[in-house]
């Protein structure tokens, strides 16, 4: 079952890479959040109320509900154009993401041991690399935020694959940091939208030597 969910997570990465519409990307974030919830829930060895609560808030509440909703609100509020305009074409993006996933697979084969399950590491590294790829290849700031969230999803998967044994209080702290940082991203994005005409990273070029 977890394998299926992980594979759906991987497929969503492909879809994000080729999709030309912003709302599809955001909806895919919801899918990823749900998949993460499923994986976390199924891999919980003992279900006590605190663990369940943290996992629930971390994946279902934050990743599948609050963040996508917040980003959609940002898009509507700032009248961001709903089309994605990458530096490179959809086909090349697809190709790049495929190569990244193959790379993660090779890396996974090399790294796997009793602790690290192959499919988890592959999915985690694919998520991390695809997130980075989106940040590098897209011009719009909103896409950068989506890339960051995908990267974070990959990191969450990685921590599952390593048998996350950190105390729950610490987990909650990590969670809070990520949430606040995305809220602040939104805040500064609003300011950028007010200051500049559109939300392209090309305009941020005043500071240089």
């Amino acid at each position: 079952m977890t394998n299926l969910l992980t594979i759906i997570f991987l497929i969503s990465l492909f879809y994000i890479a080729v999709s030309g519409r912003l709302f599809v990307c955001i909806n895919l974030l919801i899918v990823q959040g749900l998949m993460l919830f499923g994986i976390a829930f199924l891999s919980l060895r003992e279900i006590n109320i605190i663990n369940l609560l943290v996992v629930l808030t971390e994946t279902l509440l934050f990743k599948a509900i609050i963040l996508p909703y917040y980003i959609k609100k940002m898009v509507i509020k700032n009248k961001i154009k709903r089309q994605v305009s990458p530096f490179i074409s959809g086909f090349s993006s697809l190709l790049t993401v495929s190569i990244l996933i193959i790379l993660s697979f090779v890396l996974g084969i090399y790294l796997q041991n009793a602790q690290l399950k192959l499919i988890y590491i592959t999915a985690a590294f694919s998520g991390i690399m695809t997130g980075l790829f989106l940040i590098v290849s897209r011009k719009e700031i909103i896409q950068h935020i989506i890339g960051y969230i995908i990267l974070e999803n990959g990191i969450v998967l990685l921590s599952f694959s390593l048998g996350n044994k950190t105390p729950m209080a610490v987990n909650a702290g990590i969670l809070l940091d990520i949430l606040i940082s995305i809220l602040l991203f939104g805040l500064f994005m609003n300011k950028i939208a007010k200051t500049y005409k559109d939300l392209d990273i090309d305009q941020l070029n005043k500071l240089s030597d």
Partner: protein
Amino acid sequence: MGLLIYIIAVFGLATFVFFVRKQTAQYIAASVFCVVQLTFNYLLIVRKDLFNEIFFRVDALSIIFISVLSITSVTTIINSFVYFNHRRENYFRRGIYLASLFMLFACMCGAFLSDNINILWILAEATTLCISMLIYHERNEEALEATWKYFFVSTIGLSFSFIGILLLNAATNVSGFSSLTFSSLMSEKILITNQFLFQVSFLLIVIGFSVKMGVFPLHTVCIDAHSVAPGPVSAIISTSLMNVGFVSVFRFYQLFAHTSLSNWMSHVMLIIGVLSLLVATVYMLKVDNYKRLIAYSSIEHMGLITIGIAVGGIAYFAVILHLIIHSFTKAGLFYQTSQFVRIFKSKHIEDTGGYFKISPSGGILMLFLFLVIMGIPPSGLFFTKLMIFQSLINSGYLWLLIIMLVLLVFILWAFGKNIFHILFLKVPPAVQECKPKVSFWENIPQYFLLILGLFIGLNPPVFLVNIINEAVQYLIK
């Protein structure tokens, strides 16, 4: 228990200044914060046992850097009010500024004290959140751009170090990094089971924290942040925040210093240090903004410090002393830049000149700060640099030392040329017309920092020497 009280107090003060937007209230809150911070620091030194909690532990390193932080926090708050009053800042912005500043100090203290790897990461990320509000303070286009870049790159960078921390689990024999505390890991014998994985994770950690420490490769956003932030905030970025980065990297380095890969780690640090030095030199030669100039000087010093960690031996002691003196002096330099912005109404070096004439006391101060930061005797940095050089020779890097010395000469020339431009050239006519005035009293905190830096450099008190030796003893044994 003590730490909890401190954090609640600071959090309360931050909420108070955020909501109560009256001048007197802000003055009172700032004074109370100074008292809280200094009391906390005093108790930290005399009653260590009050602060040992599950995730936090008081050790020599944290005491040193928290003391530096406390001293600079008081001068920063004084300078912030000077900055506010000259700009006639509205109380809403003052409130946000002070609240973020207090939270930032608390997060940095927590980061110095944290014993748990994840807590260290959480607090380092929290400092990013606080500092981005401070960088954005002037709310113009440049500030927005710098804030966005700093915030985004810093968050991504710290995500990298988090990946590194996760991978460390799999790379070593320590059972699942069960407790994940530095103190327990240092007492066990760590074996690296998967060399490649360890190398990847160490690189990720160092690259991630380089944004805080201000070394190659993610130093660029740090420079942008310096150039737009208010003077007192730049001072914090360049001193305590860089110290947070240093302490994080240092703790990880220390953890694996006695493993089979210690040699490889020191090579990584050496490369990072030399590249930082090189970048600083190249950009200092062409820079035309005095805040960026001083920021690149910080990159240079952090590069030297990274080299110091890499070569080890006597340099470990020198590195810590170097950081202390650098913190005091660099803070002084950045406080002065907010006077420059006010007088010359520009951050470009060609628009400046004749600062000595406008404010003789400030001019003398600036001259001495320049001498100290460049490591010209009687500066303490002269001796620490000498110790780092000695270690370099002892480790057989004479050729590298020669390259470094050439770079340092270029830095001295570039920095000196621009500082003397600001100090001694003719006052620009546009500035002359405004008849700018600088009160002598504004310079008092900076004089205090200068004298402190000079004193520590020339005659380090015995307790300071002991505590520095205690901080680095794990590496030396």
